[in-house]
């Protein structure tokens, strides 16, 4: 009952915050995009390698950039009010279709990478804390430091060289074997094989962050009075570590993980380009380079939704982990 009330309160607070946040994001993004030199018609005409005055004028008209900026913004907001993200002349298709085709791929990559980072990070952190100062801690510290200091794309590249070029175990590109028309288990294992390297590249940095956070938080908890009480009660050491130490240590880790979702979306641009992953990150990059504001605003809008939803989930998770949080 109390849980239900708290969920309702969290959702209400989020809804109140989200509306203005999203509107602010749209308007600010739109205005910032206006500051970028060059427009969609310039890009299309330049890519074509040839142009005449008439074809450039036709392009400008098609993109609606022959209209005043305010009209363009109002048009966009008007469409949005009807839940219409608009049409991209560059891709000759509706923005919603473009994004919905990519969103599942990016979410799959993000969730896998985040889950991988959390699981590996927490395991590493817990092991490091349990053997603090002894050799498992030392060895893992070095590994974690390496992950922390190497850029994800470089880790990815090296993994490609090893697993894809030298050993030939894993594919280096795309999210499925194109045209293989696989079904059932074969399809799932094909998808998984394609997922491993990009998820690893995206997760490597975050593994390091969560490992260090978990280690520090657990060591902090070890010194608390309730830990001594638990030990005095004669609880099994493993149970003490998992139920009392780790659960408390998870609060800072999940807080940071929630904030990292936005970073993951950003990191996806690089990793998706590197691995030819057909996700939103690449779409974002293409939209920026193509100055396709309709698509870019759609992506930003949806990304902000993803981040907001993720934060709600993290809030709820906190409420479960530590009932004292969020009662204010």
């Amino acid at each position: 009952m109390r849980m239900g009330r708290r969920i309702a309160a969290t959702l209400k607070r989020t809804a109140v915050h989200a509306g203005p946040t999203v509107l602010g994001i749209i308007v600010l993004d739109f205005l910032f995009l206006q500051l970028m030199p060059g427009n969609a018609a310039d890009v299309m005409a330049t890519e074509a390698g040839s142009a005449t005055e008439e074809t450039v004028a036709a392009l400008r008209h098609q993109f609606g950039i022959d209209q005043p900026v305010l009209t363009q913004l109002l048009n966009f907001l008007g469409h949005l009010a009807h839940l219409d993200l608009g049409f991209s002349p560059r891709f000759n298709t509706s923005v919603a279709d473009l994004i919905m085709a990519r969103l599942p791929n990016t979410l799959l990559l993000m969730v896998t990478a985040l889950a991988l980072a959390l699981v590996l990070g927490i395991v590493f952190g817990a092991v490091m804390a349990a053997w603090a100062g002894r050799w498992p801690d030392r060895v893992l510290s070095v590994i974690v430091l390496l992950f922390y200091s190497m850029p994800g794309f470089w880790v990815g590249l090296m993994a490609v060289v090893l697993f894809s070029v030298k050993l030939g175990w894993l594919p280096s590109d795309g999210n499925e074997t194109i045209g293989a028309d696989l079904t059932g288990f074969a399809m799932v294992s094909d998808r998984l094989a394609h997922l491993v390297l990009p998820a690893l590249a995206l997760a490597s940095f975050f593994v390091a962050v969560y490992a260090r956070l978990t280690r520090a938080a657990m060591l902090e908890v070890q010194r608390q009075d309730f830990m001594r009480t638990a030990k005095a009660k004669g609880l099994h050491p493993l149970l003490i570590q998992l139920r009392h130490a780790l659960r408390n240590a998870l609060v800072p880790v999940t807080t940071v993980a929630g904030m990292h979702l936005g970073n993951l979306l950003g990191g996806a641009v690089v990793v998706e380009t590197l691995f030819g992953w057909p996700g939103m990150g690449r779409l974002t990059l293409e939209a920026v380079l193509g100055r396709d504001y309709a698509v870019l605003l759609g992506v930003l809008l949806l990304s902000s939704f993803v981040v907001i939803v993720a934060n709600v989930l993290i809030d709820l998770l906190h409420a479960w982990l530590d009932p004292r949080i969020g009662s204010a």
Partner: protein
Amino acid sequence: MTVGFRPTRRATLAGLSALALGGTRSFAQAPAVKKGGTLNFLQTSEPNTLVSLTTTATSALTNSAKVTEGLLEYDYDINPRPSLATEWSISPDGKTYTFKLRPNVKFHDGKPFTSADVAYSIQLLKTVHPRGRNTFANVAEVKTPDPLTAVIELNKPAPYLIKALTAAESPMVPRHIYEGTDPRTNKNGNAPIGTGPYLFKEWVRGSHVIYERNPNYWNPDLPRIDRMVCKFVPDPGARSIAFENGSGDIGYRTPVALSDIERLKKLPNLVFETKGTSYSYNVQLLQFNLDSQYFKHLKVRQAIAHSIDRAALLKVVAYGYGTISYSPIAPGLKEFHDPTPSPYKYDLKKAEQLLDEAGFKRGPDKIRFKVPMDYNPIGDEGRRTCEYVRAVLARIGITVEVRSQDLPTFARRIYTDRDFDFTYNGHSNLFDPTVGVQRIYWSKNFKKGVPFSNGSHYVNPKVDALLEGAAVEIDPAKRKAMFVEFQKIIAEEIPDISLYQPLYLTIKNKRVHADSLTADGVEANMAQVWLDA
């Protein structure tokens, strides 16, 4: 006299032997052509449309011809060969082009391909195609006396027109699908229907396009492969890896970083093809803004020209993959290219002397002036070219500040804001100087906001007259003389400094055969391509 072409037995035999020659190596390795298999075609960027009707972006040209064919195709020297047209003739005054169309050709939806489609396509090209507006500008009307004859009537001769009819450059689209619609948003661009050897199957945005063998193709022996998968791989490193591990079969226009080629050449499974690139040569150049306070002086431009060693630059910047050119008309366009070296030889002393004469003496810090330099970001050699130019100009007392920017920013700076002094740029010559070169030097094409127009703001009435004359001159000798004179003037006045013509490599797995048989190589329909099992 009528300039015509009829497929006589001798011509057919010659064509066959040319084919055999083109594939000598293939025949030596495997005596018989094999059928079936999937070709994995690596592409650097995703197209906006699969029909190159409203855009000529390379990514669209790459894919278009697989489904949508043209009237003609061309051998390596850009001599026409039959495709959808089987015979053609040009009237002596150069104003009437008559095409006999291939009978019994059907679009993928079963509708017949007729002269009405040709007439409609040419009208569309004339209005919506970025180059068609110029290429077909002189077209008065396209007559269709019968379903298999199309007659193009011109107001003025257009000697380049007969070279402009490849599938990718001038696609023949189905009239029944385009009529009454906006060609820019027509869904045929997303899921094309044409007469070509491959049927469009699917386009997964951000990932790939799949084409399948057209079992009802007008040439019953073709195509040979079952399926073509066009993968969009945006990262050059990832493309190298795909060639290395065999997941990519073919890619063109040097699909990997130039620095990677040496390494890839050592791999036994790869072949580096240089044929099939003659339909569109580029010339890379240093382009001056003639409104710049420095480069409006001829002597300053001459000094820069004296300080550039093209051979060294080609080696440093393009790893030697190219041919130096003193002319804006590429060496590959043998018919028109003037190989005379620049009158301004590599000579730093002379360069310094010219700068002194122009009034730009070395200051107390030994520097004459500081000037920003921009570069076209398409391709990875732009930055290196700027580094080279910065190094050599430092020796004659000019400090160069290199500015980097993305493509839209570059286009806006050069062609709209004109906020530049000099830039590294590249121009495609295409198949004829009137189409590819005139636009850069013709004073009437100084148009703000139009990319790859007269970006130098070069104005010379003599040059204008030569270019306009060559555009309508039907006597090849006279036309060549005009272009040679044009090149002499440009070499003297240097509104830009032509540097080199890049050599574009097609990289392929050795299991791929018969891929680059025409002037436009893998940009053509690739109907003949076949794979070792």
